[in-house]
């Protein structure tokens, strides 16, 4: 039901029974007012309870409209502003269903023109209440489209009306319309404030329900996203597992098939050197030596690569490690196998860590092995292994006073097969520091190198993610 406000109509003074035809006594009037106020208070209370009872605000608003008739108004209608900007009639209530049918008939045959700025539409737009205290027959005549329209409106017997907006969080949500007809009641400012009071509660209920629906939809969207993500993680895991299996097969094949020809190259060169020494001059023997060296070098490269690949797939088992003891053990090994050297090795007491013992051993072997190797030319070689606390991180530091490196190329140090020294200066496969980095990353830590040419090198690393407190 859309109320058409006749243009230029003056809102009458707010009187509850201003147009009651019979004269009434003061006493009766007061008790009538009191009863009416009681009705209003209990109506508001009941309406609040209904609005709070369910998140289906369309249903609760219909119930509230039913509740309003006939004690608050002869007619009560609720309009809702939909997402697409259309104003939709949600409820029309009257005690007599045939009257409701009549109102619907009127609505059906004389629908409001699109963009028509009157009645409910204007209230929804301006968010200001409208009161037509007295709807005169002249006003009906003025707003009627044709005779039949006028006749239908007259049948409804409308005599007073008010429209209040539904507003929540500064947004217009719709409107509540109260119309007086057969009761002959005339609405006033008091009725407007009662209707506004109801409208506030209704708007809050609509807003809450919509928020809840949005929230539920958002939650559903998040759940769907999570499910999608889980699916994608599963897919990726399968792909990774397949890639890993492929890599493993590849590594296996490398280990078998690439080394076999090298064995032949080295083996037959050796046989030539040994058994045909008499027919070879020194140069020929030297060339055979080169072939053997090259074959063995390639064998070492393959082995180093395989070790590196193996580190990435080896299962990790974390346990407490006495890093100091491990470092001393490794250095003792260097002293036993190498030529006599003067190296001052200083290892802090009580350096502990949580990590995979096998992997951490390989890491320290590489770092200490590098320090051992690159201090070879130092008459007073010195290697230290220390631990320091940096914030909540335990940082392990291996330093030496050896050949060092050009810091300009520091970023290349950890790449596989990257070497900053020629094979003539220092032997090596170029896989050692790549191995170190891989092990550190598998523990969730970081590794950094500092150094300068001729001024030694310092390698710092952690064995745990930085955010984690490992004291």
């Amino acid at each position, binding site marked *: 039901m859309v109320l058409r406000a006749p243009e230029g109509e003056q809102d009458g003074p707010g009187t509850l029974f201003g147009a009651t035809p019979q004269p009434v006594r003061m006493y009766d009037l007061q008790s009538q007012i009191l009863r009416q106020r009681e009705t209003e208070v209990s109506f508001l209370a009941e309406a609040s309870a209904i609005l709070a009872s369910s998140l289906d605000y369309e249903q609760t608003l219909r119930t509230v409209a039913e509740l309003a008739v006939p004690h608050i108004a002869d007619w009560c209608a609720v309009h809702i502003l939909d997402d697409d900007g259309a104003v939709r009639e949600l409820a029309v209530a009257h005690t007599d269903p045939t009257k409701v049918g009549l109102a619907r008939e009127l609505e059906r045959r004389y629908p409001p023109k699109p963009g028509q700025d009157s009645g409910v539409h204007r209230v929804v737009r301006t968010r200001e209440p409208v009161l037509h205290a007295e709807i005169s027959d002249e006003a009906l005549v003025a707003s009627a489209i044709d005779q039949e329209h006028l006749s239908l409106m007259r049948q409804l017997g409308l005599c007073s009306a008010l429209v209040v907006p539904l507003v929540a969080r500064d947004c217009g949500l719709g409107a509540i319309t109260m119309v007086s007809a057969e009761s002959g009641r005339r609405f006033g400012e008091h009725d407007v404030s009662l209707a506004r009071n109801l409208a506030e509660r209704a708007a809050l209920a609509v807003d809450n329900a919509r928020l809840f629906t949005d929230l539920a939809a958002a939650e559903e969207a998040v759940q769907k996203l999570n499910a999608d993500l889980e699916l994608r993680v599963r897919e990726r895991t399968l792909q990774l597992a397949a890639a890993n299996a492929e890599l493993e097969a590849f590594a296996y094949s490398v280990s*078998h098939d690439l080394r076999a020809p090298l*064995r*032949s190259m080295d083996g037959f060169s050796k046989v030539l050197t040994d058994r045909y020494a008499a027919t070879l001059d020194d140069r020929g023997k030297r060339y055979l030596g080169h072939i053997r060296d090259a074959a063995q070098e390639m064998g070492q490269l393959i082995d180093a690569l395989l070790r590196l690949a193996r580190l990435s797939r080896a299962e990790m088992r974390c346990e407490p490690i006495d890093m100091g003891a491990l470092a001393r053990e490794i250095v003792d090994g260097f002293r036993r196998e190498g030529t006599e050297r003067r190296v001052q090795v200083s290892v802090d007491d009580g350096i502990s860590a949580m990590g995979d013992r096998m992997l951490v051993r390989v890491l320290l072997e590489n770092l200490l092995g590098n320090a051992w190797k690159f201090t070879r030319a130092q008459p007073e070689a010195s290697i230290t292994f220390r631990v320091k606390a940096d914030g909540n991180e335990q940082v392990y530091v291996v330093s030496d006073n050896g050949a060092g490196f050009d810091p300009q190329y520091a970023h290349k140090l950890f790449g596989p097969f990257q070497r900053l020294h020629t094979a003539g200066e220092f032997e090596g496969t170029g896989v050692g520091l790549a191995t170190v980095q891989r092990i550190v990353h598998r523990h969730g830590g970081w590794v950094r190198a500092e150094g300068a040419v001729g001024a030694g090198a310092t390698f710092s690393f952690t064995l745990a993610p930085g955010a984690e407190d490992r004291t």
Partner: protein
Amino acid sequence: MSDGLILLVEDNPRDEELALIALEDSHIVNQVHVVRDGQEALDYLFGIGRYAQRGPTDLPHLVLLDLKLPKVDGLEVLERLRDDPRTAWLPVVILTSSDEESDLVRSYQLRVNSYIRKPVDFDQFGAAVRHLGLYWMVLNRVPSHPGRG
């Protein structure tokens, strides 16, 4: 040196030749029979197929077994040997390129007697062959009636 026979299971002719040279250099003069794949190794050891005329009890003193072999691979050969009472205790030494942990574990699960990784360096390979020849052909004792008892 013992007069026992060595069965060399090796599919690569160059590796075979190097192995023979290494044995020769180590003064191991035992007869060496070479088979080229896993199936031939089983035929030889069980006296079947083209080795049907061979007595099944006429076992070699030592089997040098490669892992990566055509037809039937080394681990399967080892498994079949261990499953048969006639060959369950036959000394088998794996001689392979692989030092994959999984190969080592599987070999030992199948009660291999020894596992040697063939080094690229022929000097090291020669030393390994010398050691294993001396150990398995001279020092090591085996039951005289394997499979009984």
